[in-house]
């Protein structure tokens, strides 16, 4: 790595650590930003690197959220009694129970999500392109319907998460630290993976799956593994977001296809799908503009979301980073050589 790269990374690390202290009022928003970065990065694993549209990745977000909730509560109380609307509020957690439960929940969430990805992947990742895409279309919806019908986790009225045992300002910092660690870990892990044979295999599948298979690549296994990797981090993101949000609602929070489910697609293609920094840039740009302008759109924001996707796909298919790379190739090529 060149000195310039080190300086850039150092500055970013410093900014990441300092951000919640510089802008304490926005700490929760900044934590959300890291969740969004994770969502965009994990969508890009299939959508960008492998060339497979997945419209149902939100399923793993929701599964992680519920898995963590069940473990966090189930370690110390009866979950059914906890979610029973008649008896709610009487069951509380000591700080020790809270942190212990959270740790266990953050362990259970990625495991549950990864297992789900392995199972669903084994079912439908033998399929290609449009077949896989349409098959994923219903996944998030089905997850939401199932969770809403499952009384054990509170059904349609949702699941109230244990309350953070500490003052409000510390809560935001705590979750910022968690979300930031997740975002950075996701980035580092994916970057490491993309730099290995695995990353080449993903790109080979995107470029020509038949040829990749003819060359002896076990394409179905690689595809399932890729989905499992993105589900792992999505599950963690779900667990953190569930705790940050406080209430898990099956259709609008956990399996929220119309918000997070669409946003992750949009952020990845906005920043530049198939690039390492693209989803990060896309998430930052989208989250900031969303927070600035969302409320002024008076309900039309979800309509605007659809317009944005169409416009980006038609007129800006390379995304911000892909466009920049084409516009100023020297800058980017210099960087690639420096890394090698």
């Amino acid at each position, binding site marked *: 790595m060149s000195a310039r790269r080190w300086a850039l990374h150092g500055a970013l690390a410093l900014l990441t650590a300092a951000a919640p202290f510089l802008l304490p009022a926005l700490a929760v928003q900044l934590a959300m930003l890291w969740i969004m970065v994770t969502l965009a990065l994990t969508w890009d694993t299939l959508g960008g690197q492998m060339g497979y549209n997945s419209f149902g990745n939100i399923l793993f977000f929701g599964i992680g959220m519920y898995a963590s909730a069940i473990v966090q509560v189930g370690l110390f109380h009866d979950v059914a009694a906890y979610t029973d609307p008649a008896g709610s509020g009487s069951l509380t957690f000591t700080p020790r129970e809270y942190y212990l439960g959270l740790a266990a929940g953050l362990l259970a969430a990625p495991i549950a999500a990864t297992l789900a990805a392995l199972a669903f992947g084994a079912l439908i990742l033998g399929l290609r392109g449009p077949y896989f895409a349409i098959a994923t279309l219903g996944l998030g919806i089905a997850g939401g319907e199932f969770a809403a019908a499952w009384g054990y986790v509170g059904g349609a009225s949702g699941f109230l998460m244990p309350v953070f045992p500490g003052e409000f300002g510390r809560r935001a910092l705590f979750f910022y630290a968690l979300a930031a660690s997740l975002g950075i870990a996701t980035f580092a892990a994916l970057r490491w993976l993309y730099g290995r044979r695995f990353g080449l295999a993903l790109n080979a599948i995107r470029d020509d799956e038949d040829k990749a298979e003819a060359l002896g690549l076990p394409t179905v296994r690689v595809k399932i593994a890729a989905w499992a990797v993105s589900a792992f981090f999505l599950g963690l993101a779900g667990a953190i977001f569930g705790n940050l949000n406080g209430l898990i609602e099956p259709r609008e929070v956990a399996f929220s296809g119309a918000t997070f489910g669409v946003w992750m697609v949009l952020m990845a293609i906005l920043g530049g799908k198939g690039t390492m920094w693209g989803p990060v840039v896309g998430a930052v740009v989208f989250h900031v503009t969303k927070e600035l302008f969302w409320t002024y759109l008076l309900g039309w924001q*979800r309509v605007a979301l659809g317009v944005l996707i*169409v416009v980006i796909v038609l007129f800006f298919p390379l995304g911000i980073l892909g466009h920049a790379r084409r516009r100023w190739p020297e800058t980017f090529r210099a960087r690639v050589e420096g890394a090698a």
Partner: protein
Amino acid sequence: MPAPMTNLLLFLEAPALLVQVLLDGILIGAIYALAAYGMALVWGVMNIVNVVQGELVILGGYLAIMFSGLGVSAFLTVPLAAAALFALGWVMYAGVVFRVTGKDMFVSLLATFGLSILIAQLINQIWGADVRSLDAELGSWLILDSVVTISRARVAALAAALVLGAALVVFLRTSRLGRAIRATAQNARAARALGVDTDWVYAATYAINGAICGAAGALIAMIWVIHPFAGLVFTIRAFAIVILAGLGNLALVIAAALGLGAAENFVGFVLGAQFQGAFVFSLLVAILVWRSRRLARSRKVLR
């Protein structure tokens, strides 16, 4: 005893109920066939899997309700909704879809996915999230000792769907445009070389699909209920029917659609209507897995 078991036993006690449930499903299935045939048309001719299909159907339903609110008789709303969506289909092609025809399917999937979000949210914004329906006020017949009711609107919808489907087949077989559409589907380059304006054919195909969806939506609004986010399940239904029946065979499409309608209504009755969507989805996955496993035996893949 769990509710599904009691519901199943209900059929033993009153077999007529089974007739009722299956009949209702079959009558709705005819409309699924329309949406699926339109999807197959666009897929076969333009090589685009139209993710926005279901939303077009639902939009047709809302337009029909709107026309009916303006004093149009229920049955006239069907051609009106079809005409409106024919125009919209043309606009969508000219504005968006023409840019993705001939490109990688990855791109057209994303673009039509964006369109589906756009239309669903637009409907939600304009007409609200409430469940709506259109009462055709036709009453119903009672058969089998007055146990089974057959809604006349549903029978009329079935008839309308069949007439529409037949008209479409005749149109594709005999008319000049129909021949051009079929030629383009077979080989777009050759058709272009022989003087077919394929761009115009694509626009017409997409608009015709819009009209089919509009008519299907108006019929659905009359015999069922619609809400802004019901489109997704219609897309999945249409897709499931198309991959089961193939792209070219209308008779098979109708058979698959009627079967899906009956199966779905049966499961909805036994397990509860809230699981109907999940059932359609699981059925799609099952069909996909079954087809790809069969192809995998001869080392082929579904494409």
